[in-house]
């Protein structure tokens, strides 16, 4: 049966000094500590090759750790792997389905392997297929499914046995915007209403920002920052106000006025930007000063610090740039 027990007191995922080494030199996961509670959505953010998927493999018992220890749903991943697998649901980065089986056949197979009774397999599977919009296609072979349908079926299979801990490894890769938002809604509901602990890896900043209660930023196998997204952003930076002068000839005068309210930071070509303590009051004061000097603006934009700024501050590299760099190396 699915493990529905929620240990209210203890964490659903705990790791201490977790290491996974490949060969003699490559430490894909390099001493990770984690403590994640039931009902919490933990966003694991990092570029490709940072160690996100390897961490998921360790926590889901697919790979044994080289050193350190971890427990999931109260069970040690090394010594009680079967109990861990009973408690978890996993949607991997690559949607692995058998193209010659139908959606319903996948559900029945997965249910049988999780030990669900036949009636439960049929009932629960039917409910989930319906909830994820797959009921009409349930008896079609998966080879004919679209990418989004395969991803949704993958989630149905991950949730079939009512797991108490859910691992989602880059779950919105390849999903269109409505499907992505539907998935976010489901994940929030599972965490808030059912108390499921969710470990979500992503390389999308907005996904971590929108979903996660806490974010861990991983780079080169190590967690370089961990806190709620708002706190992380507040720690590293202040908002930026970016403007363009209405008249190019007034750009110097606008820059001089802006300099009175904050330090200049790099901006888009043709624009000027400063970092301020508070976006609202700063913007009001700047607008007053510009008006007093008879200067007009063509464009104004207030930007709050992003998780990319956090990544930049902690690693010295941009998250997007790190991902692109990793992809180029991978290619």
């Amino acid at each position, binding site marked *: 049966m699915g493990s529905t027990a929620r240990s209210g007191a203890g964490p659903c995922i705990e790791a201490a000094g977790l290491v996974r080494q490949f060969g003699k030199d490559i430490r894909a996961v390099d001493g990770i500590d984690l403590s994640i509670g039931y009902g919490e959505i933990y966003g694991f953010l990092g570029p490709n090759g940072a160690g996100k998927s390897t961490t998921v493999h360790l926590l889901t018992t697919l790979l044994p750790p080289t050193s350190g220890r971890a427990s999931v749903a109260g069970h040690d991943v090394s010594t009680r792997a079967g109990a861990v697998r009973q408690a978890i649901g*996993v949607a991997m980065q690559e949607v692995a389905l058998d193209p010659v089986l139908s959606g319903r056949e996948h559900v029945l197979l997965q249910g049988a*392997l999780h030990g669900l009774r036949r009636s439960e397999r049929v009932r629960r599977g039917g409910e989930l297929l319906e909830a994820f919009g797959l009921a009409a296609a349930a008896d079609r072979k998966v080879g004919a499914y679209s990418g989004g349908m395969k991803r949704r079926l993958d989630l149905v*299979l991950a949730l079939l046995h009512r797991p108490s801990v859910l691992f989602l490894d880059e779950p919105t890769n390849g999903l269109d915007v409505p499907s992505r938002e539907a998935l976010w809604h489901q994940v929030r509901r599972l965490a808030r209403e059912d108390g499921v602990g969710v470990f979500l890896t992503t390389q999308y900043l907005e996904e971590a920002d929108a979903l996660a209660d806490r974010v861990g930023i991983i780079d080169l196998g190590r967690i370089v920052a961990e806190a709620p997204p708002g706190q992380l952003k507040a720690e590293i930076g202040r908002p930026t106000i970016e403007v363009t002068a209405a008249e190019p000839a007034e750009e110097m005068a606008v820059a001089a006025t802006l300099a009175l309210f904050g330090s200049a930071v790099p901006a888009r070509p043709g624009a000027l930007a400063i970092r301020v303590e508070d976006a609202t009051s700063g913007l009001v004061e700047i607008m007053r000063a510009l008006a007093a000097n008879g200067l007009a603006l063509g464009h104004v934009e207030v930007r709050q610090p992003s998780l990319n700024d956090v990544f930049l501050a902690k690693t010295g590299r941009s998250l997007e740039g790190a991902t692109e760099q990793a992809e180029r190396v991978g290619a």
Partner: protein
Amino acid sequence: MRRSLIQLRWLARRSALRTLRRPAAFYPSLLFPLVLLVITTGGLHLSEHVPGFPATSYFAFALAGAFVQGALVGGVNAGVDLATDMQTGFLNRLSLTPTPRRLVILGELAGAVVLALSQAALYLIIAVASGVRLASGPGGAAVVLALTVLMSLAFSSFGAFLALRTRSSEAVLGTFPLTFVLLLFSSFFMPRALMHRGWFATVAAWNPVSYLIEAVRGLVITGWDTGALARGFAVAGGLAGLAVALTALTLRTRSVAA
């Protein structure tokens, strides 16, 4: 125990369905041994007149080779399927359930064994329909099927071992020509007693496939040849034991994670 049997049944069902629903993979492995049987019978049927040849029908003589060839090809296919499951990540999906990993691999092999058994039953039906009368009777047919199960388990386990070692369906498929080497350098075409005493006879004597063929062949054309049967079951059992042990050892020391 009951739960394990349910898991095994579903895994075997999926393994068999996967093969049956891919005609391009299924029919060649089903028909190829029959085609080779027809060709060799057409080309070598005059061997029936060679003094000392043990059968009056070359078709009946060569029939045993089809059972062994079917099991060999099925073993390669089982390995290719398992490697494909590793490459696509489907084995990860199965391994992320509470089903023990040895049971996951056994389920993949069980599907191959069920298919081999069905294939062997079909060959028996075709043989009887073609006028072959099993010298050992209906009991002999049951023993042929039992030996087929053991052979299929052995060759499928070797396929699984290769899949777990290489993680590459291409690498496992690359061993396909080896099945022909094993068949051609055995008593597939001619009884060992009629081979010239040279290197070929020596190779055939060391080739375990010879003893598998001779065990089935005995049941078809001779009757209850206990010596041939004992050697055949010993070789099949030994190969199965070795292959299962190698697979289990590999499974313990290597991760299945894609």
